[in-house]
């Protein structure tokens, strides 16, 4: 379409075929056409007068937030699985190395059966942390697990596994709060809850083997 600044806005709006991007820019910067255009844009903008339902929109926001949480949890479980796999491989390598160190003659003999290497039990990692919390990426010393800048949901999940509780997250936004938290795994579930309740924003309920984040 050949640029024609004699055209008015109505003609362009109703017959846009052939209008190129360059022509559109030229028309919008034209003094006469630009005035019509700016007034029409303002008219269009001033026309929106709907009274939206803010409560329904709020519900929609909560659904969006919940949907965003799910992939993160899935990714976290994959990371945990990868770490667990690495741990198993590491433990197996350590077993072989220890056996080689203790029985140098037997393993050096070509006739020694290879199966004898696997007969030695794998060394147990030196930690008192329960296996269920090994994937929390938190530092563990004796009975204390340190969660450094970890999401609350992760802390709750680890504790529920440890105490045999069912976790219920009713408040995804609070669940995503990141905390520095020292957890003494020798304490009771109720003491764990009381310790977390010390945070102003956290409201937990422990009832019937269920730990609920309200």
């Amino acid at each position, binding site marked *: 379409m050949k640029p024609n600044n004699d055209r008015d806005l*109505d003609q362009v709006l109703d017959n846009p075929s052939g209008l190129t*991007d360059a022509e*559109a820019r030229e028309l919008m910067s034209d003094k006469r056409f630009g005035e019509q255009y700016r007034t029409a844009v303002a*008219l269009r903008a*001033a026309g929106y007068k709907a009274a939206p339902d803010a409560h329904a929109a709020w519900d929609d926001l909560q659904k969006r937030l919940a949907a965003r949480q799910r992939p993160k949890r899935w990714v976290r479980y994959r990371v945990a699985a990868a770490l667990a796999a690495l741990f198993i491989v590491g433990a197996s390598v350590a077993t072989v190395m220890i056996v080689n160190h203790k029985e140098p003659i037997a393993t050096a003999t070509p006739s020694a059966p290879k199966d004898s290497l696997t007969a030695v039990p794998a060394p147990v990692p030196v930690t008192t942390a329960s296996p269920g919390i090994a994937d929390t990426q938190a530092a563990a010393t004796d009975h204390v697990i340190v969660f450094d800048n970890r999401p609350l949901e992760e802390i709750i999940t680890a504790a529920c596994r440890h105490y045999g509780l069912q976790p219920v997250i009713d408040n995804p936004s609070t669940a995503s709060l990141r905390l520095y938290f020292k957890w003494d795994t020798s304490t009771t579930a109720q003491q764990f809850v009381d310790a977390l309740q010390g945070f102003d924003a956290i409201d937990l309920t422990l009832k019937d083997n269920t730990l609920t984040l309200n």
Partner: protein
Amino acid sequence: MNARHKHIKQLYLDNYATLLRLATAITGDADVAHDTVQEVFVNIYTSPCGDVGRGYLVNAVRNRALNHIKSLTARERLLRLLPADEMVQDGDWPDPTTLTRLSHLLDNGLDARQRQLVEMRYWQRLTLAEIGRALGILPQAVHKQLTVIIDTLRENLN
């Protein structure tokens, strides 16, 4: 329900309508505007930022809405009656005072027929021919009447 959650909810309920109106004015699309407001609040929720106020919300929604229309071509913006770059580059479009005055003029400075024409043309995006068919008049007559309306509104605004 914790204090931060309560604060954000109140902030949302108090400001949603205003923010939606602002985003719709810029993007010209109520669905896009709704998404824009929601994304701003998702960011507030998921980032460890402190308390935010109305000023922050208005700026965040405006910037996100402007980013949306910047992704469109000049042709798309013209045909959808979205603001051109030069209209938004100083950061104060849509000027709330002008929009309020224009809204007042639409309500009080036009007769029912004129308001109907504006609504059909600029809000429903009907063509002159479609409006003419609906009202039983020629497209040329619709064009003339719209020209008079726009000139009147422009004079009053100036």
